[in-house]
């Protein structure tokens, strides 16, 4: 069947089998191997992408189900060499070691910040709940939580065009 999905703002059309999973549809698109294919059982969260702005597990979604929807992957975060605040936060707070879970963590964090934009400061519980669908075997999560908080605190300054403030660690 012919499937047409908007991935990172660009229309991607391909002839696929109905059983193709979204994670493979994305990864078989040139340049889009950032989305990781992990446990294949919707437990680990490495494959999380945004569908119409909401995080979903792409290993447990058929590509066919995404026809006509907007998918956003980790490749969309950096624009013209400028990192997204969540990427910068992961850099500042050393929130990754092997990096396998990172694409899913970044997209889950991006959705959390979008959803909570303009609201009161994120609590640690909110952050930990939001990322509870992702498994990280390296960091113990502490630095990931810290990175997401960093991103939340610096988002306004970074997106308004000024450079990221220097951070003492």
């Amino acid at each position, binding site marked *: *069947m012919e499937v047409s999905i908007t991935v990172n703002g660009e229309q991607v059309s391909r002839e696929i*089998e*109905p*059983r*193709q*999973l979204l994670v493979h549809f994305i990864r078989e698109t040139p340049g889009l191997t950032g989305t990781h294919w992990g446990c*294949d*059982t*919707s*437990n680990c*969260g490495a494959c*999380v992408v945004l569908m119409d702005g*909401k*995080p*979903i*597990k792409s290993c*447990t*979604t*058929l590509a*066919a*189900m995404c*026809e006509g929807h907007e998918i956003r992957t980790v490749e969309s975060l950096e624009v013209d060499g400028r990192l997204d605040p969540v990427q910068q936060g992961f850099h500042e707070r050393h929130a990754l070691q092997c990096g396998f879970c990172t694409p899913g963590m970044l997209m*889950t964090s991006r959705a959390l910040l979008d959803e909570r934009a303009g609201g009161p400061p994120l609590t640690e519980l909110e952050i930990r*709940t*939001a990322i*509870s*669908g*992702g498994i990280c075997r390296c960091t113990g999560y502490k630095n990931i939580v810290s990175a997401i908080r960093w991103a939340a605190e610096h988002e306004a300054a970074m997106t308004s065009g000024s450079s990221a403030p220097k951070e003492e660690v």
Partner: protein
Amino acid sequence: MQTPASFDYERATSVEGAIASLHRLGSEARIIAGGHSLLPMMKLRLASPEHLIDINDLTELAFIRETDPPAPEIRIGALTRHVDLLRSELLAEHFPLFADAEQVIADPVVRNRGTIGGSLCQADAAEDLSAVCTAIGAKAVIRGTDSERVVAMDDFHLGPYMTAVGEGEMLTEVRLPLRPGAGSAHEKVERRAGDWAIAAASAAVWIDGGTITAAGIALSAVGLTTIHLTRAQELLRGQAPSAELFAQAGEIASEDCSPGADGRGPIDYKRHLAGVLTKRALRRATARALHQEA
């Protein structure tokens, strides 16, 4: 790599169309909504439907609303996602056990896709919403080509992974009768965040003038199907709520469940846990009914 076996895919544009397709395609057709139960089953070849009918565009099945007296109900469309059940103010007001359960069903990312209809139709004994719906006396609306049936949860779940939804039919709605004096709670113990329950208990009580006029209790994960604790419900009816009464109900829960030993624990542990969780759920449900929750 885990990939489902081949199937034909079609996207429904109306409820009538989906039912017509189910009718035409027969026993080898399945509905897919969130897909978080069905796709893992298909990857493992525990299910190999030849046709999938995608109902994600049927937004008319995604709602939570209250109907008017004389028989007020909350009606939940089958395509309502877990995230919306968790955040519903209407459910929080009338049936807070939904939020108790939804906070611990899988994880927030899965809850963005999974639906109440999918959870109930999966009919997994360890699934939380089946116990929730049984405890509060929910009814399932099953629609076929020319007819609609309304069945109680006891008649909806026929066995492990088996429901009353027949060929050419689909679950469209869940109805929760509203009666005054209600309080409800869901208690679950799991090995780690997002896991299936080791055991879970759903309880609802209706209290009038210091007396329990009706009760509903159901257990997840401690039997081949959801366990409806009718004997414990009978014990509570007409009694004043008390710690002793709830302890007795807990003892009945331990006796009337039928857990199996597995990686989540041995049988005696699960029986004990079912009793403790039943007691806790009743205590919290009662506190809520009396507006005394700490």
